């Protein structure tokens, strides 16, 4: 089980998408590739933007599939608003996945 402190990387207001991307690429994806469980620990994070959460997990949901990703990622110590932001991102990704567009 790998634990990642979002507070240590992004501070109390998690809004920097570059940091979210770095966490995703350098920590979450390698762990998922090894079939490892990951805890994203939001202890100390008072707010997060939708953009931050999107940059953190949307690509993982798409590439690894919702079921696999959510079975391997746990969200710890999220306050009510952070939980809701994560919920919005997870839901719009689920709603949107599978819709074919001209681009696809």
């Amino acid at each position, binding site marked *: 089980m790998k634990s990642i402190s979002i507070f240590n990387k992004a*501070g109390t*207001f998690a*809004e*920097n*998408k*570059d940091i979210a*991307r770095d966490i*995703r690429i350098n920590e979450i994806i390698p762990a998922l590739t090894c079939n490892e469980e990951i805890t994203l620990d939001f202890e100390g994070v*008072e*707010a997060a*933007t*939708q*953009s931050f959460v*999107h*940059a953190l997990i*949307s*690509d993982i949901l*798409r590439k690894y599939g919702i079921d696999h990703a959510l079975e391997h990622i746990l969200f710890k110590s999220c306050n*009510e*608003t952070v939980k*809701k*932001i994560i*919920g*919005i*991102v997870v*839901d*719009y*990704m689920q*709603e*949107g*996945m599978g*819709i*074919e*567009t*001209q*681009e*696809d």
Partner: protein
Amino acid sequence: MKIHLPNSAFLGNIDPFLRGFDPSGSDSLEITANEKWISVHPVVLSMIAALGVRVRPDHIKCVPLEAKSKHYLVRMGLFRILNIPSVIRVVEHEPAGRFIPITQIRTSDELTKFMTEMIPLLHLGFDQAKTIGYIVSELVRNVIEHASSEHGAFLCAQYYVKSNAIRIGIADTGVGIKKTINQAYSATTDLEAIQLALRPGITGTTRREGGTEQNAGAGLFFIKSIVGASRDFFVIYSGNGFYKLLKRPPSSRLRLNADPFKDRHSTEGDLPYWQGTVVGVDITLDQTKEFSLLLDAIHKTYTSAIRERRKARYKKPRFI
């Protein structure tokens, strides 16, 4: 370019100010002002700053300001950012709790640093500071990521004690919304591009639902929703296009619309051309809905919008 500071230009009555802006002659800037009184929304100052930094300081002509309220422009840092002298003398006060002077932000790291400095500066409660921080972060990141402007974003904000409101203005002189959105869509006018940009899940980076790994196309929809929930003004101006979310009475029911044209709004499609994007926001703090409740409403509207788009793509039976 010519710009005139009127006696009053806030989001409710900003339209004449914008119509009077003359964008011709981009190598010089002439600033004139009402002689008796100047009372303007921060977005006006952000616009002047964004225009002015593209012009050599010796090509900026600012008429001697006579209005009693001229000190405000100095306090907000207008002459400092334009790098032109001001003969107006003011006693500088600690700005905490009142305003954020004009600030230029060009990079993601500068924004993160600014966010940590900004929230204590406003001396607000946590929920209120969180809402303001959310708006500023999303708007400035839009500029950094999409505007392709070497000068980045110019923002300033003012807290008004009497109305318990924050007014925020952000301007850039980048490529504008139409060029950004048309990387994936085919908006024919600036106004149409603004309409698309305000819809949830629409981004210029892809047509794919869910966006790219870095962009969902949700930022402006969230901000319009936050402002709509507090029943305040939200203004967006890019190219010739202009959209204004109008104030609603406090008794009106909270209703978020995925299509900004279904909100109570006004539009203009033929304003003087603004090369880039301008956003003005008012937030009355005692009307701000609890953020988590607002997120529930955003969640519902967002997922319904995707379902509608999904439904629109269903294959239809062919009846002969």
